[in-house]
């Protein structure tokens, strides 16, 4: 008991400091734009950038790149997360290419692509004729159909039905339901194309054969630690200047920066916030910082538990949370608060709600006074220090308005297990999402049965709206659907969006050719460093 009190007092003191810092550092709120909606997301987001460099006679032959998390598998059909996308971007191609700075789709492996009907359930594709896999086999429509059939990503499987192969280089992709955003999905790494022959010959490792500019050197592959890549000299597109690249895991941020300073690696992501200034002051290192399409959020369990039928409780928490305090506590100084549960970079972002649920401790107190149950369990994945810190800050913020948050610490496996849609036991939890560019991507967090639906939401109207949103290309209609979803989520406080994170990429000064993006799935295929 005594110890608990003491740790509480620690926390209190810490928070007092934080609020001091917050008061001092508060910027003016962004001015409302012409439409009367305040500008979402970061003030001046770096969209996407290809780092420019100078031409040189010769380039370094080998480059090491530090990863922040494990690459556990080489097969794009089996896993989807940002770390793996670095690899997939280099080794595989997708049918389409999406440029998120121009927001336009273009062909990659597909020479032509178009909707084959007006219900948005069939896409007609013709393939480039000159593409060969790393195994030497030519790319055919069969491979495309095979790849889409086998991918386990829900992005694809939610609406993909089957592909009709018409001839060697032509096929129709048929969807089970309309999805106007499916072409974006086809540009996503989850629908990367692998060689059917290779996978059938070797089910375990055949998935590692792609068509991209880099080939995996299987002999030097250490699962979960490093992937060695060599240049694909038979690549159909522009060939990289570097001959070989190793992606390897250095999970600690400080260690990564030391390795970068010590020239053991040439590029890294996620500089420790406390060390950004130090990294920037080094002439050997160039640092890019940028807002990301990642959002932290607070999810209530809306199916069972005390929050499920208690709007006042949910709103009280929403009023109690001061977002700025959160990201100051986690040290993410480039973060920006999130108002709507939607990506700031998405086309139909909306946050001009009638009901203001911004930080307001007085209102929170009023609501808490009306509550019978003033206790809420918050499940926290202690594997991430951000979640841990945020949970403590939220606990303190709620305490101030009279609401008791009990923190249940679990590791990441426990967090996932306890929040599975079908058997969720958490009352509330902290989580994050990397949002793709297309608006329907938010369906992952809102649709019935999805394991990433941490709010365990089963709202008929939202489900209906999600369906409507992908069945038309009429921008006004879609805007209305998505605005309604955002309003529903906001007003009912199913989720409380917290903030959009920022990230940094640091690299050896002189390196160029990397395609850096707010979506964090940077493409390092063309990284090169002039020989000194």
């Amino acid at each position, binding site marked *: 008991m005594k110890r608990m009190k003491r740790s509480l007092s*620690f926390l209190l*003191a810490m928070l007092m400091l934080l609020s001091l*810092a917050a008061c001092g550092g508060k910027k003016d709120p962004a001015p409302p734009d012409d439409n009367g909606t305040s500008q979402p997301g970061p003030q001046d987001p770096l969209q996407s950038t290809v780092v420019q460099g100078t031409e040189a006679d010769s380039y370094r032959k080998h480059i090491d790149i530090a990863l922040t998390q494990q690459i556990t598998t080489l097969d794009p059909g089996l896993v989807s997360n940002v770390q793996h996308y670095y690899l997939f971007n280099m080794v595989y191609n997708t049918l389409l290419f999406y440029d998120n700075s121009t927001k336009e789709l273009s062909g990659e492996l597909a020479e032509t692509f178009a909707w084959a009907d007006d219900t948005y359930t069939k896409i007609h594709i013709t393939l480039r004729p000159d593409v060969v896999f790393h195994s030497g086999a030519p790319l055919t429509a069969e491979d495309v159909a095979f790849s889409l059939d086998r991918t386990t990503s829900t992005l694809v499987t939610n609406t993909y039905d089957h592909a009709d192969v018409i001839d060697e280089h032509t096929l129709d992709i048929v969807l089970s339901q309309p999805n106007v955003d499916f072409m974006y999905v086809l540009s996503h790494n989850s629908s990367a194309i692998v060689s059917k022959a290779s996978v059938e010959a070797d089910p375990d490792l055949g998935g590692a054969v792609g068509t991209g500019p880099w080939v995996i050197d299987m002999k030097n592959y250490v699962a979960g630690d490093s992937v060695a890549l060599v240049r694909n000299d038979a690549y159909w597109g522009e060939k990289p200047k570097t001959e070989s690249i190793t992606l390897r895991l250095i999970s*600690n941020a400080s260690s990564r920066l030391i390795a970068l300073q010590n020239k053991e690696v040439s590029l890294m992501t996620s500089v420790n916030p406390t*060390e950004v200034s130090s990294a920037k002051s080094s002439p050997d290192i160039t640092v890019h910082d940028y807002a990301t399409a990642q959002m932290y959020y607070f999810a209530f369990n809306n199916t069972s538990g005390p929050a499920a039928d208690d709007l006042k409780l949910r709103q009280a928490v929403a009023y109690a949370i001061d977002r700025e305090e959160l990201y100051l506590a986690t040290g993410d100084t480039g973060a920006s608060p999130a108002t709507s549960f939607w990506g700031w970079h998405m086309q139909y972002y909306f946050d001009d709600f009638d009901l203001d649920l911004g930080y307001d401790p007085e209102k929170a107190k009023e609501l808490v006074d009306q509550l019978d149950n003033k206790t809420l369990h918050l499940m926290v994945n202690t594997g991430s220090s951000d979640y841990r810190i945020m949970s403590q800050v939220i606990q303190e913020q709620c305490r101030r308005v009279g609401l008791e948050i009990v923190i*249940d610490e679990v590791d990441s496996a426990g967090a996932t297990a306890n929040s599975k849609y079908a058997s969720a036991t958490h009352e509330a939890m902290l989580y994050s999402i990397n949002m793709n560019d297309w608006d329907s991507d938010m369906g992952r967090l809102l649709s019935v049965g999805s394991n990433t639906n941490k709010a365990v939401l089963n709202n008929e109207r939202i489900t209906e709206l999600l369906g409507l949103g992908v069945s038309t290309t009429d921008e006004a209609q879609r805007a209305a659907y998505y605005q309604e979803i955002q309003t529903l989520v906001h007003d009912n406080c199913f989720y409380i969006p917290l903030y959009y994170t920022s990230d940094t990429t640091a690299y050896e000064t002189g390196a160029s050719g990397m395609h850096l993006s707010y979506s964090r799935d940077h493409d390092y295929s063309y990284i090169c460093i002039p020989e000194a």
Partner: protein
Amino acid sequence: MKLDSKKKEGLKQYRKRSALGEIFHRLRRNKGAMAGACILLVLFAVALTVDLWLDQEKVIGMNVRDKLQGPSLQHWFGTDEMGRDLFWRVVYGSRFSLAIGFVAVFVSLIVGVPLGAVAGYYGKKVETVIMRFTDIFSAVPAILMAVVVVSVLGTSTINLMIAVGVSSIPGFVRTTRAAVLTVRNEEYVEAARALGKSDLYIIFLHVLPNCLSPIIVQTTLRVASAIVSASSLSFLGLGIKPPAPEWGALLTAGRDFILDYSYLTFFPGLAIMITVLAFNLLGDGLRDAMDPKLKR
């Protein structure tokens, strides 16, 4: 008659010190062990009384203007990212680290010693079963076992202690068993058995008190390794979390600043090192003092 009195005198000359006195005497000659004991005395005194004389404000008192200042006369170990004086945090942290060390070892003591005693005392099947189980248990590396236990129980200070404790159980089982084996056939045990005392009575009142020395040595050394293990778990992200000033947590928190402010890592590590060294020196000294081989 004259001779008799001489004889007595002669016998007196050969009289030995009591076993404990002998051990203490030899321990006192071991400079390392004495240094260790002195360090530990100071540490214990600090850990037990720190609440009384250390102003809480010094440990938790934040002062952003003073943040991340290098070691100076005013702040011996410098200040951390919140401007807290690292020296006082390390001083205060002694109670966490010592508590973890002792509670963890207590956990393995209360499980390991009875198991080892039973195995050694009964022998035969009971022994085989317990020792096989111990073998199996110790086939899992200690740190891994601790991680598994933390995964099962969840992360908290108590669970950390249990985890570290559980992973050193096999050591205690083995030590106790070996010690019990050497005394279980001694006459006083046979005598107690002949008197019809219960096995439990014999184990706890006759056997174990005579096996204390190896257990004490083991305990001292295990406290040392428990402190290291606990800080390792903190380092792996499974231990006590900041802002609690546990040394491992301080060290881990300091890692984020290692590039520019390495003293934040250096001093807590130094504190762990000195404490653990003190336990090891004392334990090693005890082992030497209790080792009959070195009596010659």
